[in-house]
């Protein structure tokens, strides 16, 4: 009988979302849930995962960045960019900052002068009032001058340090704190990570206990690797607070965000960490010892700290794309200048050699795509419509890996000179390494992208788990789910309808193929693993890489089309890059799909690793036997 039901559902083909199924409660719940999910939080990547590529294609195509700023904002931004550019060109010495592991007083004063501490704070609160697009442009300029340590000093302060107040603070908190931090009178820091809690942010141990009088929370605990930890006055601190547990009627711990002033007392810090890179940025442990925080300083709601933290980190990620775009451009420029002048073999400039062209070309592709995505995401953020957390996370991964590649290859182009301190590339490379680790490790972000997207568009995955508890009674939900998915595989997905320049029609066809294969792959995985997909980390990583490259390709095609229409300077090269990038992305995409479909390689690698962990090390005998 159950098989009969399945067949009926398959042949019916049109299993509607808003089904009027009355017999199976889970079905209705699923439908209601799905409606809710699809109404809220539409984003390009979520649509991609649910096979509805078309649903949010207009977030990215036509390329929206032209509309991001009006004439006045544009002029204002140009002036701020000029001031920033001039400052960094004349008044900052990145090599010295790296050598001394500090930012000199005069530089800090100069940064205050150009408003660098409060770029996104509203003018009324003594900030520069830039939008996200504006902020991205400034941060790109800072990255261009190769002082990422200073960039992090500023970024940890405003992109995450006090961003929570900007996003979730109430009026009193904003008025009280924003002017001081916007002008640089006080420095801010973001204190989440603890010795035993890195990626697993919910497991933090710092506790905040409400005092008898109900006036203050008393903080106890310690944080590690806090940027600006040794110099900040204002901290956004995350701690466990006791809240009521509706399920058990008792209490449970949930994270709450607090605005903590050093002046509250009970807050101390450790010595500056000795790091591989971004040395100019102060990194320190922060200790809370009966630190009393007034209840008015709860940021957001009690118990909503995790959401606050994720919102802050999510909101700041595009900034990394911008900084890294600047740093990549600077690195590549050094390589281009060198290759244009260096002569080797038969009196030829090395720029004429294939292996050098390969490096520069590949660098340019990555810069172009990172830049395209950065400005697109910040435009989407400014427009207020649509979600962007998956795109921002993908950008962070793509940008940090690209930046490492670009700087590393630039060093290669320069040969021995690239290895020398005086050139500065080695410092940039050291600075770049942390970008793949902090603000969400690339590994976690890739899992986040795959699982979040699969979950939210996985059409009631939660309902499915509920249904799985009683498979027989809830067969309707499961078969409905499966039926819908199978129906989709039979060719019922959204076609890509993206308008591009004439020369890119082949590339759009490739993109469409990728989107289709991606969608059917996702379906297959959901059917095969259901909830178990979350434990298939390697597969999730492959999925994330696939979706990132689809997003990147779409951004690149949209950007190149836009430039070709306006015939901006260099648009022909943009079209070239668009073509080259699509091929490059397709290659990576196909590799990853292959590894999803045939899990043998990944499994073997996991087995190798298991053996090594069992033995506690590389467990193979030397070829010599000793």
């Amino acid at each position, binding site marked *: 009988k159950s098989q009969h039901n399945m067949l009926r559902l398959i042949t019916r083909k049109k299993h509607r979302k808003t089904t009027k199924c009355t017999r199976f409660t889970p079905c209705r719940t699923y439908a209601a849930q799905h409606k809710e999910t699809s109404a809220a939080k539409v984003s390009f990547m979520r649509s991609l995962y649910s096979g509805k590529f078309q649903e949010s294609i207009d977030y990215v195509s036509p390329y929206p960045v032209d509309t991001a700023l009006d004439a*006045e904002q544009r*002029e*204002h931004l*140009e*002036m*701020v960019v*000029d*001031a920033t*550019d*001039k*400052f960094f060109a*004349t*008044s900052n010495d990145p090599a010295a900052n790296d050598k001394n592991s500090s930012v000199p007083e005069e530089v800090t004063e*100069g940064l205050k*002068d*150009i*408003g660098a501490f409060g770029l996104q704070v509203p*003018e009324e609160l003594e900030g*520069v009032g830039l939008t996200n697009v504006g902020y991205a442009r400034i941060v790109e300029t800072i990255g261009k001058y190769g002082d990422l340590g200073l960039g992090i000093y500023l970024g940890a302060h405003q992109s995450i340090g006090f961003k929570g107040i900007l996003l979730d603070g109430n009026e009193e908190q904003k008025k009280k704190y924003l002017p001081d931090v916007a002008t640089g009178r006080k420095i801010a820091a973001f204190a989440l990570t603890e010795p035993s809690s890195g990626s697993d942010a919910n497991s933090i141990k710092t506790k905040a206990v409400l005092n008898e009088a109900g006036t203050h929370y008393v903080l106890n605990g310690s944080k590690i690797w806090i940027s600006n930890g040794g110099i900040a006055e204002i901290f956004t601190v995350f701690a466990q607070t006791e809240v009521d547990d509706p399920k058990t009627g008792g209490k449970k711990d949930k994270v709450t965000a607090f605005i903590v002033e050093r002046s509250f007392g009970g807050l101390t810090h450790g010595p500056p960490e000795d790091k591989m890179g971004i040395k100019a940025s102060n990194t320190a442990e922060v200790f809370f010892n009966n630190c009393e925080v007034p209840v008015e300083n709860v940021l957001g709601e009690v118990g909503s700290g995790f959401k606050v933290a994720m919102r802050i980190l999510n909101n700041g990620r595009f900034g990394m794309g911008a900084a890294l775009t600047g740093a990549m451009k600077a690195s590549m420029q050094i390589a281009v200048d060198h290759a244009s002048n260096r002569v080797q073999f038969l009196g030829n400039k090395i720029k004429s050699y294939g292996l050098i062209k390969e490096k520069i070309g590949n660098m340019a592709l990555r810069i172009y795509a990172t830049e395209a995505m950065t400005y697109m995401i910040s435009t989407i953020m400014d427009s207020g419509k649509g979600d962007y957390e998956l795109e921002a996370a993908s950008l962070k991964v793509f940008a940090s890996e690209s930046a490492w590649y670009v700087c590393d290859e630039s060093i290669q182009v320069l040969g021995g000179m690239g290895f020398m301190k005086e050139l500065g590339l080695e410092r940039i490379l050291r600075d770049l390494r942390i970008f793949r680790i902090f603000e969400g490790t690339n590994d976690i972000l890739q899992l986040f992208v795959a699982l979040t997207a699969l979950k939210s568009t996985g059409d009631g995955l939660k309902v499915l788990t509920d249904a799985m508890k009683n498979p027989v009674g809830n067969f309707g939900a499961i078969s409905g789910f499966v039926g819908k998915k199978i129906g989709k595989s039979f060719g019922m997905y959204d076609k890509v309808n993206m308008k591009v320049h004439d020369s890119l029609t082949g590339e759009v066809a490739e993109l469409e193929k990728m989107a289709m294969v991606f969608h059917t792959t996702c379906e297959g995985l959901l059917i095969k693993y259901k909830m178990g997909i979350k434990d298939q980390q390697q597969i999730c990583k492959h999925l994330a890489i696939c979706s990132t490259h689809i997003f990147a390709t779409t951004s690149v095609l949209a950007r190149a089309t836009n430039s070709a229409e306006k015939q*901006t*300077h260099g648009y022909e090269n943009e079209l070239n890059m668009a073509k080259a990038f699509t091929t490059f992305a397709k290659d990576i995409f196909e590799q990853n799909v292959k590894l999803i479909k045939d899990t043998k390689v990944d499994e073997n690698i996991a087995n190798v690793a298991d053996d090594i962990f069992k033995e506690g090390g590389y467990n193979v005998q030397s070829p010599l036997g000793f």
Partner: protein
Amino acid sequence: MAYRVLVACKHAIDLSTVKIRIKPDKLGVVTQGVKMGIAYFDELAVEEALRLKEKGVASEVIAVSVGPADAQKTLRHALAMGADSAVHVNTGDVELAPLQVAKALREIVREVEPQLVLTGKQATDGDYSQTGQMLAGMLDWPQATQAAELNVENDSVKVVRETDAGLETISMNIPAVVTAGLRLNEARLVKMPNIMKAKKEEN
């Protein structure tokens, strides 16, 4: 005696532009999509005017730009540096040669009646080095070009000029025209509060 100083600034191609390209019709340089801003030496002229004000020699610094709508950006920059007011002679899309610019400036001089006119020795895109000299000629004022040093004392302007043959010191009576050379000074960095103020000013 506190002087009114008029500083003429051109909205020109930024010095950091890697390659200045000639338009296909060969009638000028490409400015579309190219970074433009206050011409390098004109900025030095603004700086010098502001220093005269700080020394008490000048009472008012007025910036003027003869150029397209975008020249507003250059004027706002001058205001953000500290100029008291700005005048924009909007030429729209028409490109003017130094002679026409000088004629326009002559009219402004007649209206504003400054005791000193400062400008850069030449602009980065045209590199003409003519406007200041022509203006002085039209006004029948003394001129000192390629200034490396400027001092004002008792209605007399003393300028050390750089020439190919070496340094030359000239003394002139005000009113006079001086064009700024490379070693005259180093322009100040603009501060954000001033940028914000300049943003709001209507001209």
